[in-house]
């Protein structure tokens, strides 16, 4: 086996419960096992992750699933081609609203259809009364959160562009904005919905796995040019993260991961909230439902890609047909290679 071309890497992440595979890969020695010394850089925004990856300040990063496609299509403003050979996580998002909006929606607990219809009725009444449109936040234009929010609103008969204002706010600022009344609700990754509820400023409506189960969430992103220049390094990086994902699905590992994340102070929330986000113990429709591994869950899947493509075309200004770009950026072939490498090395 060849040596990796690079052994010291810098990898970006955003403070969310699903940065767990990266932190576990570092703290439990999966990177080291493959000859990689990876330093993790906690970034303040997804735009910052994109810029630093594109400018070469980061070698690799945890990214929102649509980001590499947006980059391939030149929709992200940068246009430096990115690729992904690994889905780091699925599910994990929650729709959370202010206490007053939750009261106004009334109705049963954690039922996306009932909440959607109630919201539609409320918005119609408020529009008729000439009230200012409500504001809902997601975390980034090219994010599953944005797409899931639109999908839920659309199914409830709400036009996200006419009936509401949507905007992006980075996860760590959401609780503050909800408290300050700048937004009426948000769709964000765990643990931020739980943190808002714990702070008493909002209530969780439901987890987005009720809108779309097993939804592709975070991916490993690298520059296409980087992956070509350092194929052995990239292979090992993917392999180490596959192993970290498998580790996270073992008995009692989520609890351990929550402790590791809390110890490293990656997120500014209490250890109890991290545990609640990762442990998967909460009730049915409020369970974030994270998946970090299992069967083909880590591979870039065509169903995911078709969904991302559809969503981008639905609301965005897609310059060309994205199908060719999809195949260039979500690299199932490189994923298979890394899986084979894991098997050989075991």
């Amino acid at each position, binding site marked *: 086996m060849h040596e990796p071309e690079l052994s010291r890497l810098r990898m970006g992440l955003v403070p969310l419960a699903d940065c767990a595979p990266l932190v576990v890969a570092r703290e439990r020695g999966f990177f080291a096992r493959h000859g990689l010394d990876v330093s993790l850089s906690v*970034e*303040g*925004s*997804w*735009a*910052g992750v994109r*810029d*630093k990856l*594109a*400018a*070469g*300040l980061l070698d690799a990063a945890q990214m929102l699933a649509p980001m590499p496609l947006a980059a391939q299509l030149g929709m992200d*403003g*940068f*246009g430096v081609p990115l690729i992904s050979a690994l889905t780091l996580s699925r599910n994990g998002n929650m729709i959370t609203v202010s206490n007053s909006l939750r009261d106004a929606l009334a109705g049963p607990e954690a039922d996306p259809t009932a909440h959607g219809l109630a919201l539609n009725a409320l918005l119609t009444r408020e529009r008729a009364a000439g009230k200012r449109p409500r504001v809902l936040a*997601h*975390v*980034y*234009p090219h994010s599953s959160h944005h797409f899931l929010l639109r999908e839920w609103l659309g199914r409830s008969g709400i036009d996200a*562009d006419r009936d509401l204002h*949507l*905007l*992006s*706010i*980075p996860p*760590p*600022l959401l609780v503050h904005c909800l408290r300050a009344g*700048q937004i009426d609700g948000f769709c964000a990754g765990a643990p931020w919905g739980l943190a808002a509820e714990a702070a008493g400023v909002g209530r969780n409506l439901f987890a987005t796995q009720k809108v779309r189960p097993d939804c592709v969430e975070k991916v490993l992103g690298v520059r296409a040019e980087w992956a070509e220049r350092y194929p052995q390094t990239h292979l090992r990086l993917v392999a180490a993260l596959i192993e970290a994902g498998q580790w996270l699905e073992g008995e009692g590992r989520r609890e351990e991961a929550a402790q590791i994340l809390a110890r490293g102070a990656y997120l500014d929330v209490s250890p109890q909230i991290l545990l609640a986000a990762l442990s998967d113990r909460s009730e049915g429709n409020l369970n974030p439902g994270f998946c970090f591994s299992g069967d083909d869950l880590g591979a870039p899947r065509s169903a995911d890609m078709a969904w991302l493509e559809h969503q981008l075309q639905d609301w*965005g200004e897609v310059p060309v047909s994205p199908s060719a770009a999809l195949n260039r950026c979500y690299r199932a072939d490189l994923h298979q290679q890394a899986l084979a490498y894991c098997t050989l090395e075991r």
Partner: protein
Amino acid sequence: MLVDDHPERLALLDAALTAAGHRIAASLGTHEPLLAAVQRHRPDIVLIDVDAPNRDTLESLGQVKRDQPCPVVMFAAYSDADTIRQAIHAGVSAYVVDGLSANRIQSVIDVAIARFGEFRALQQELDDTRLKLADRRDVDKAKGLLMQRRGLDEAAAYAMLRRMAMSRNLRLGDAARALISAAELL
């Protein structure tokens, strides 16, 4: 419009841009409501710390063009890859409104890169000075330990510390700190 949490850097940037004939519509910190400021001041260009968390809010502005021209990340409007890379390395990102001339963008970005670079050099100098002070303090402490435990005079203690640093390929300050932390364990 400038968005940054370092008052010294904001002051440097403000003075340099004003001197170059640009007008600063507003300066704010990264935790102030950015959206309201953009809507009120309608800047042609927003210079913002690369690490500012509220950048993602600017990203979504460019997606919705219904109200007014909104600033979008400069890379979309402006394609000099080298300048962009230099800006990110210096720690500054920019959002510009559609139709702003490449010359004006270039002029503002050049000033920003230079001032961010200058600020970084100042920070570095300050860090170096702090480090030197810390080194001197720790080297003195380590010398004291050696003198006390090994019965050496000051010159011999210093020579021993230097040999230790050279043989382990450490900086003198780091060797001193290793010795101090080892002494704490004994």
